[in-house]
């Protein structure tokens, strides 16, 4: 049996997993929700199971293996992984002894938890070879080129996921740790903010995490100019039809010609649509809508940095010659990047902040979904010969131990 390559992008929202089949065209990862869910009837579902088995998501509870971006709970993660492996190869049991695993974990993971991951990989599953890295470090392996030659040696990766947003400069395919920045705004925080806004203004949806996520994905966008959008918010209003469990179970945005019956419940959303994602550029939105943080003078007097500030800071923390190269090659990855207009807004904000003689270019994936880019990079990496020199085999692990493993894959202290 020949060696097979498995790539798992272990995101806090979705696991993206798939084999390198060697088929260049149309490869897509399997996406499994990285959570155990418990529905109102007390049944526990793994991964995507809940979507098929119930159509009433009210009062659903999520248990995620990630806590504040750290993979803390392997007792939660293990069943999800087992389920994922079954979905990956339904015909034949996955044989880890002939499998090379490329796994991602969020940057600045607590070393002890990374070590736990290594131990599970080798001792519990028994994978033959293994490479672990941050998702962003796989991104340079993806061709973003709309032009002929893309520059993969200097790349600034903005990875906006479910937990937070990472800004990571990649220089010669290595993470430049001094330039790594984090903005604690991600899909989950936006969900929380939207939930608070809608629960205050319209209906109480505090126990409807799936619905909140759907509303965010279907209606939210980033405004080109927030003040202008606020003035013309009546024009930007949309109507979201809430699920009635007869005609729709998820809810949808009302089209211009959709007829609705009299008893349909709907949300009229106007400024919520763009005020929520605006948290990327005005993080104070997160704090001003709450009694304790709005009333605290310390919070009010501290200047907060937004996405643009952190990107500029990150670029400036890199060697001087690399800076214009990085600004000309900014790549957006992660699920939250899919918020409409994310790229254009970032481009216009960055052009204002960076020196005028620098090129600013922001790429998004072409022909590939934003949250699958890192995974695709992993697949491309396994096609390259270099993978053999950076991986760790099971033999190495049992000879040198888990601390050595962490030394190979871990981050650099600042």
């Amino acid at each position, binding site marked *: 049996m020949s060696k097979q390559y498995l790539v798992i992008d272990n995101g806090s929202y979705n696991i993206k997993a798939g084999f390198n089949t060697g088929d260049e065209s149309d490869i897509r990862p399997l996406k499994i929700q990285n959570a155990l869910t418990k529905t109102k009837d007390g049944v526990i579902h793994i991964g995507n199971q809940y979507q098929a088995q119930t159509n009433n998501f009210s009062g659903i509870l999520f248990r995620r293996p990630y806590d504040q971006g750290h993979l803390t709970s392997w007792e939660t993660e293990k069943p999800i992984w087992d389920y994922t492996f079954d979905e990956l190869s339904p015909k034949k049991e996955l044989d880890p002894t002939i499998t090379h695993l490329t796994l991602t974990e969020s940057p600045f993971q607590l*070393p002890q938890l990374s070590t736990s991951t290594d131990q599970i990989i080798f001792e519990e599953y028994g994978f033959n070879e293994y490479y672990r890295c941050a998702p962003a470090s796989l991104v340079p392996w993806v061709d973003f080129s709309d032009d002929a030659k893309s520059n993969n040696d200097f790349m600034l990766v903005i990875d906006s996921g479910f937990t937070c947003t990472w800004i990571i400069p990649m220089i010669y395919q290595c993470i430049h740790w001094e330039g790594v920045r984090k903005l604690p705004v991600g899909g989950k925080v936006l969900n929380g903010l939207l939930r608070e806004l809608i629960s205050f203004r319209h209906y109480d949806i505090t126990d409807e995490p799936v619905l909140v996520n759907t509303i965010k994905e279907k209606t939210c966008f980033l405004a080109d100019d927030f003040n202008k959008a606020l003035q013309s918010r009546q024009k930007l209003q949309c109507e979201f039809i809430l699920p009635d469990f007869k005609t729709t179970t998820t809810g949808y945005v009302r089209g211009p010609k959709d007829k609705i019956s009299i008893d349909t419940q709907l949300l009229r959303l106007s400024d919520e649509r763009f005020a929520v994602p605006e948290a990327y550029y005005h993080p104070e939105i997160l704090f001003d*809508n709450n009694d304790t943080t709005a009333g605290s003078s310390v919070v009010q007097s*501290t200047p907060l940095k937004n996405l643009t500030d952190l990107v500029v800071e990150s670029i400036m923390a890199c060697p001087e010659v690399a800076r214009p190269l990085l600004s000309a090659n900014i790549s957006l990855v992660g699920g939250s990047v899919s918020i409409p207009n994310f790229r254009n807004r970032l481009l216009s904000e960055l052009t204002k902040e960076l020196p005028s003689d620098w090129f600013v270019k922001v790429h998004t994936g072409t022909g590939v979904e934003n949250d699958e880019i890192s995974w695709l990079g992993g697949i491309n990496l396994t096609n390259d010969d270099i993978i053999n020199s950076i991986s760790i085999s099971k033999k190495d692990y049992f000879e040198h131990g888990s601390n050595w493993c962490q030394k190979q894959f871990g981050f650099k202290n600042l």
Partner: protein
Amino acid sequence: MLVEEIPKSANSNSSTIYFSSSINLTARSTVARGGQGQEEDGSGASKKGRAKVNYNVNSLMNAQTQVNDSKNTSGPLKSAQQVQLERIVSKRLVELNKESSSSTFEIPKNFNYNSIHFNASKHNKKSRSGQTPTTKRILSARRNLNSYFEEERNLMSINTILGVNYQFMDFTEVASKSKKPKVDKIYRPRLRLCCICGSKSNYSRCYLCGLFYCSVQCNHLHAESRCT
């Protein structure tokens, strides 16, 4: 602070390493080194009568890293204000990150996922509990993030990891507020949004709770509904 006696309950607290040196008053120095507290008691008994100094290695390391850091930042690590700020901000972020009002559920003891390739004869009920002692420990840990942070020995790593979380706030400005304000960095004005209708409200703010409002109507509504 650095020199402390080994507490009586040293055996239970195994995460703390003590380093002890026997100071020989007759200048013939022999250094006894004990690993954990338990061994320590044994070696202490054999050299009765000698003065012994016990160093808490954790606090030594703590002091070491703090000395290193203070060279960079030239000052105390964190001001009280900064600590307070971090606490408020992280509390709010945790609140926003909660997905539903009730907290998450515990996995029941009998919960198990059986692979579709599960073969009862080959695997004998080991699938949940772990194959080796190490993985058994990891898979039954049920610990939260804080307990991992407390256990982490390498304080440099912790400083790095926690520092990353608060990168989006500018502490230098807070620290130097009492002195003359800096002019090299100009901050954009904060976005003030009415807590009732979401319009801009640059000037008016509730004197009781600090929330913003844009008009008299909104203020009335605010006082009736949100103001605490």
